[in-house]
């Protein structure tokens, strides 16, 4: 049966040297307008970054010619969808991909009726034969794949309707469920699948990937910019890549509008003392610099001095003065449009890593944080909630 995979040697080789290689260089001009996230989506299993364990297991199962039902779970931007798409492409190649793979996600209607009709019909369908000699290039195993992306947003009913379908047609159909939270998949489904956990990307791999992309796209990065990207991305590679592209667009796009910008000298002046300075100075040269600040601005990260200002205002003095100072800081913060969740996150990081506070204080403060987070998610007014949080913390700081 191993003859399915004439690329077995390659697979074995790559299984040993890990999956961190990335040799994606698609023709640039055609895909110019694509988001980089799509453009640099891994084309094969080997290209998938940092999920060594999962990839190894998958490649082993490939060599064994059989695929179990699969359940991929993990935080966003870790390569779940990419992995299964790459796997399907390797299995079927471009021509058979359409007839053998059904991809459904939350943007499609996925109620119980769809599971009963569309999914079942597809699962039941007999296999079409690959064209002659096609098998030499692609393994084309005798089963189809149904990909249910974002499966945790399926209703319980729809999930239970899948149960029997998965078993009955398991000879000719494999299911792959993808979700963020494995707990939202009902147990009977989860037990029918082999689970693969996708862990958040580690620094090294993410960094390498981002640097590769930057190099491919001719984007110059300021020293430390990659680290900022990774920090802002919080382990989500897609986020990091989107940030990178947006930042590159902002600084790079200035170049396009340059002839016009010269006409508006007032506007131009404004840019020049902004971070785009480098872009404006190197007329004619087509590379620009992405700075740390521009990335933070795109990611919506609040500048450190603003957060520090708020923290300083919260420090205990006489209680009344605290209120005035805090209220002013919070009003400014809200008027400047900083998102409340971001304020909470950054404040949290500052306070939790503050060594001058006692553990007891921290415990109390963290409880306030949890309460506020819940309120924000419920849609409470940001101004009042943040003000409340700040005053509560300030009160707890005063307690000794």
């Amino acid at each position: 049966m191993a003859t399915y995979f004439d690329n077995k040697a390659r697979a074995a080789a790559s299984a040993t040297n890990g999956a961190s290689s990335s040799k994606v260089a698609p023709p640039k001009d055609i895909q110019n307008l694509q988001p980089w996230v799509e453009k640099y989506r891994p084309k094969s299993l080997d290209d998938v970054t940092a999920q060594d364990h999962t990839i190894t297991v998958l490649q082993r199962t490939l060599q064994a010619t059989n695929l179990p039902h699969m359940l991929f779970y993990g935080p966003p931007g870790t390569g779940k969808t990419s992995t299964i798409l790459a796997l399907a492409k390797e299995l079927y190649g471009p021509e058979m991909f359409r007839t053998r793979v059904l991809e459904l996600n939350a943007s499609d209607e996925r109620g119980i009726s769809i599971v009963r009709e569309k999914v079942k019909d597809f699962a039941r369908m007999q296999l079409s034969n690959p064209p002659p000699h096609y098998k030499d290039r692609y393994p084309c195993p005798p089963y189809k794949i149904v990909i249910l992306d974002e499966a945790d947003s399926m209703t319980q009913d729809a999930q239970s309707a899948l149960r029997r379908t998965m078993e009955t047609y398991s000879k000719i159909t494999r299911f792959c469920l993808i979700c963020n939270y494995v707990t939202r998949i009902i147990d009977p489904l989860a037990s029918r699948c082999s689970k693969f956990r996708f862990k958040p990307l580690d620094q090294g791999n993410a960094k390498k990937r981002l640097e590769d992309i930057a190099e491919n796209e001719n984007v110059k990065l300021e020293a430390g910019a990659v680290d900022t990207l990774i920090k802002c991305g919080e382990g989500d590679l897609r986020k990091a890549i989107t940030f990178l592209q947006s930042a590159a667009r902002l600084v790079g796009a200035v170049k396009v509008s340059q002839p016009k910008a010269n006409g508006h000298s007032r506007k131009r002046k404004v840019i020049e003392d902004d971070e785009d300075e480098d872009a404006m100075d190197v007329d004619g040269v087509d590379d620009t610099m992405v700075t740390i600040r521009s990335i933070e601005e795109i990611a919506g990260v609040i500048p450190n001095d603003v957060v520090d200002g708020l923290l300083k205002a919260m420090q205990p003095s006489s209680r009344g003065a605290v209120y005035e100072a805090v209220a002013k800081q919070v009003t400014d913060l809200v008027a400047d449009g900083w998102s409340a969740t971001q304020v909470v996150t950054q404040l949290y990081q500052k306070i939790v890593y503050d060594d001058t506070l006692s553990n007891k204080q921290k415990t109390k403060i963290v409880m306030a944080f949890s309460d506020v987070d819940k309120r924000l998610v419920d849609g409470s007014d940001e101004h009042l909630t943040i003000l409340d949080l700040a005053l509560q913390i300030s009160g707890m700081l005063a307690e000794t």
Partner: protein
Amino acid sequence: MALLVDKYRPRSIEALTYHEDLSERLRSLAQSGDFPHLLVYGPSGAGKKTRIVTTLRELYGPGVEKIKIDSRVFQTTSNRKLEFNIVASVYHLEITPSDVGNFDRVVIQDLLKEVAQTQQVDQSARQRFKVVVINEADHLSRDAQAALRRTMEKYSPNLRLILLANSTANIIAPIRSRTLLVRVAAPTEVDICKVLSKVGKQEGWAEAEGLNKRIAKDSGRNLRRALLMFEAVHAQNEKVTDKTLIPPPDWEALIAQIADDIMAEHTPARILLVRAKLYDLLSHCIPPTTILKSLTFKLIPKIDDALKADVIKWSAFYEHRIRLGSKHIFHLEAFVAKFMRILESYLMGMDF
């Protein structure tokens, strides 16, 4: 006659006054031909919508200003019919999915797919893609947001989204990671003053700098409100000076009155009196959050410093309750009662 707010709304990116670097960025994005999905957020009256409209104009030319209103009917899976209004030009659509409440997912799925699957009809159009502007994106249900996720990736050649929101708190992370976040901060008081004096000059009104400054301060950095107040002052007075009184909106005056009532006496009878006034406010469609917030900020200066943190705490608490509950008056009244109790016990020197 149009209101000043509409009359002097900037129509092109050049005409935008404050946040020059942001305007410049939007322009370069529009001109680069590689326009990303945008998520524009900021407090109200900061100029989010104005910036979007000018950006659209930069993208497509004056054609975007010819808009018409379509009424469409969508059918849910349970065969309920939903009426839905769409503001559309040849190049863009503007929708407010939160109009249909819990069924916003249906609208998002049907409408966006339909738009995304049809190409731009106008061959002479500057861009190949259409833009869909989604208002009040922070009120979209989780389902609708989940439905957006893959649509955004899959149909990106034909479709760009611009989401407008007051805060990013309710936007799920996957959407945030797919969009370019654009923060529109409220204009500073200096910015507002500049705008006011410019508008005043164009209208031929005598300028009173002190008045402008006070308006800017009272508006809470909300330019729309500042302009409305500015117009009101000038409409009511023949001649304005630095000392002209700024007439507060009726509801604010009433809330100030409530605050005085609450401070004066702490008895059940007084709560009854306040209840009538609160009902009055609610029946005039003043949002309960606004009532609670302005009441709190009116009360704060009147009380002792030691109590302020406590009052804010309960105010935030009842605001949350208002958000979760369905009968607003309960929570407003509960806040009033709580406030009286806190104040009374403080005055009596007792600790409850």
